[in-house]
């Protein structure tokens, strides 16, 4: 299998606190990986390092053959990594379709002069972007709401829009930060299907942070477990379920 993301021994220190310590991880092309751990274990921090929001104090991150640790967040995105946020961050005063259209900015070829003068590639590309954005919205059943403001969508649709927007950047790796947060069991089940389907359809790898054990165990091929900033286990869902340290640290007897 081809290696897509290689995280080598990364650590980060915030004012004396070692939020994540010597974390390593490998993601192959097309894999669906879970990252779990109790509250405050450093999952989101690890996420933020991978996506370039924080720079690791030690260690390095290689994505698709390029060293990304030290690069800025937008550069990492341009290399083919996209993410969603635990607390949804949409462009709330923009319409649903504009939220998605923003994501195509990296692929726009027309220049400033063409945009201002409205000639050359401007119209063709704008038409193409609108078309692609509409197609994506259809997949997520949001096409009827294309012109509504993002802030007016109900919660579940906002989550879906955030995923659609991330996909529009054309990622090879998609990172989802607690996508099921605040969803009911039925919605979570649909989300599980959606995640599996996205992976097939868009041919990408997915890294998932999740609290909902059912979701993680159900869809992920491999799971990494963090506790107090340390990676205490990794393996298939079955292995994780029976790993003694994980049970002690996180799952607790009652879960099994």
């Amino acid at each position: 299998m081809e290696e897509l993301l290689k995280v080598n021994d990364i650590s980060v220190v915030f004012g004396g606190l070692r939020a994540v310590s010597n974390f390593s991880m490998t993601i192959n092309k097309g894999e669906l990986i879970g990252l779990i751990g109790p509250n405050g274990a450093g999952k989101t921090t690890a996420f933020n390092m991978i996506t370039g929001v924080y720079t690791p104090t030690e260690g390095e991150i290689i994505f698709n053959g390029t060293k990304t640790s030290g690069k800025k967040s937008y550069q990492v995105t341009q290399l083919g990594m996209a993410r969603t946020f635990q607390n949804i961050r949409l462009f709330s005063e923009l319409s649903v379709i504009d939220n998605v259209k923003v994501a195509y900015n990296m692929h726009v070829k027309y220049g400033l002069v063409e945009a201002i003068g409205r000639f050359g590639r401007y119209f063709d590309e704008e038409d193409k972007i609108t078309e692609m954005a509409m197609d994506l919205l259809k997949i997520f059943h949001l096409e009827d709401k294309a012109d509504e403001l993002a802030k007016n969508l109900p919660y579940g649709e906002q989550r879906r829009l955030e995923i659609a927007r991330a996909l529009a950047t054309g990622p090879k790796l998609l990172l989802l930060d607690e996508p099921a947060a605040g969803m009911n069991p039925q919605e979570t089940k649909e989300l599980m299907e959606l995640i599996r389907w996205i992976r097939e359809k868009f041919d990408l790898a997915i890294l998932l942070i999740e609290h909902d054990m059912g979701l993680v165990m159900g869809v992920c091929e491999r799971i990494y477990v963090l506790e107090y900033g340390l990676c205490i286990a990794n393996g298939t869902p079955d292995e994780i379920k029976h790993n003694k340290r994980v049970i002690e640290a996180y799952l607790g007897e009652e879960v099994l």
Partner: protein
Amino acid sequence: MNILRKSDLKRIVACAILFAAVQGLLFAEIIGPFWELNIVLICINIILAVSLNLINGYTGQFSIGHAGFLAVGAYTGAIMTVKLGFPFEVALVVGTVAAGFLGFLIGLPTLRLNGDYLAIATLGLGEIIRICILNIDYVGGASGLMGIPRFTTFAWVFWIMIFVIFFIKNFKNSSYGRCCLAIRENEIAADTMGIDTTKYKVMAFTLGAAFAGTAGVLFSHYFYIAHPASFTFMRSFDILTMVVLGGLGSMTGSITGAVLLTFISAYLAEYPEWRMIIYSATMIVLMLHRPQGLFGNKELSMKMFGLGGGKDGRTAESK
């Protein structure tokens, strides 16, 4: 797509009709010198308001030092024509570029700041520009630069204003504009969309500053003089009031705000002491009761009156 081209054409025709009407009234001397002056001032204020709206309203970077760039344009343009004897066209270009370049230099470091801090920094920079001008004897220091020829005509200001409006409108409706709006909405999310936020912020700031410079050249070549007292913080506040009154993020709002406030201050010309009181009281009442301004971030369009046909937005943009 064809509709869009047509609708742009329609707008330009409408502008030409408006121009012909006003120009005709000027010729026939139905509009006297007092109102002619105010019409020119309206056009200049519209340029200032829409260019500030690009920075504050679209990109969400709170700049309150716009008068500084106005000053740079006014003085640079005047140096070109008065001191160096270049034609007006050159003065316009140089004044615009000089203000834009300064905006770029200032924007690069300061746009890392956010919210209140950026506001204060831009205010400080605006004042520094003014203080520097006060201390340069070459441009007349505290007594101002006098003897500037009146090159600005109604035709010049009007068509430059139309150019700036179309420039900023088309900018907003492109990928560049969407990136700016995304930054305004959520900078962190914009970053994860692959947007180099600094680049776009500096771009908007530079363009806004450059157009303020254009307005400055037009200003000093209409009023015969460039004086440091015309470019104080109060002037910046004037422009800000226009933008906020109309609604931050609304181009038609900025235009309405500029027209409205220029008229108000023309009527209050005889009571200057009341002018600022009314301005500031308006601002406070507006913020307390309608902080989004007259139009919010929406655009005024025919559709708002139920006449169909959107002026901006997706209806016009998509097919």
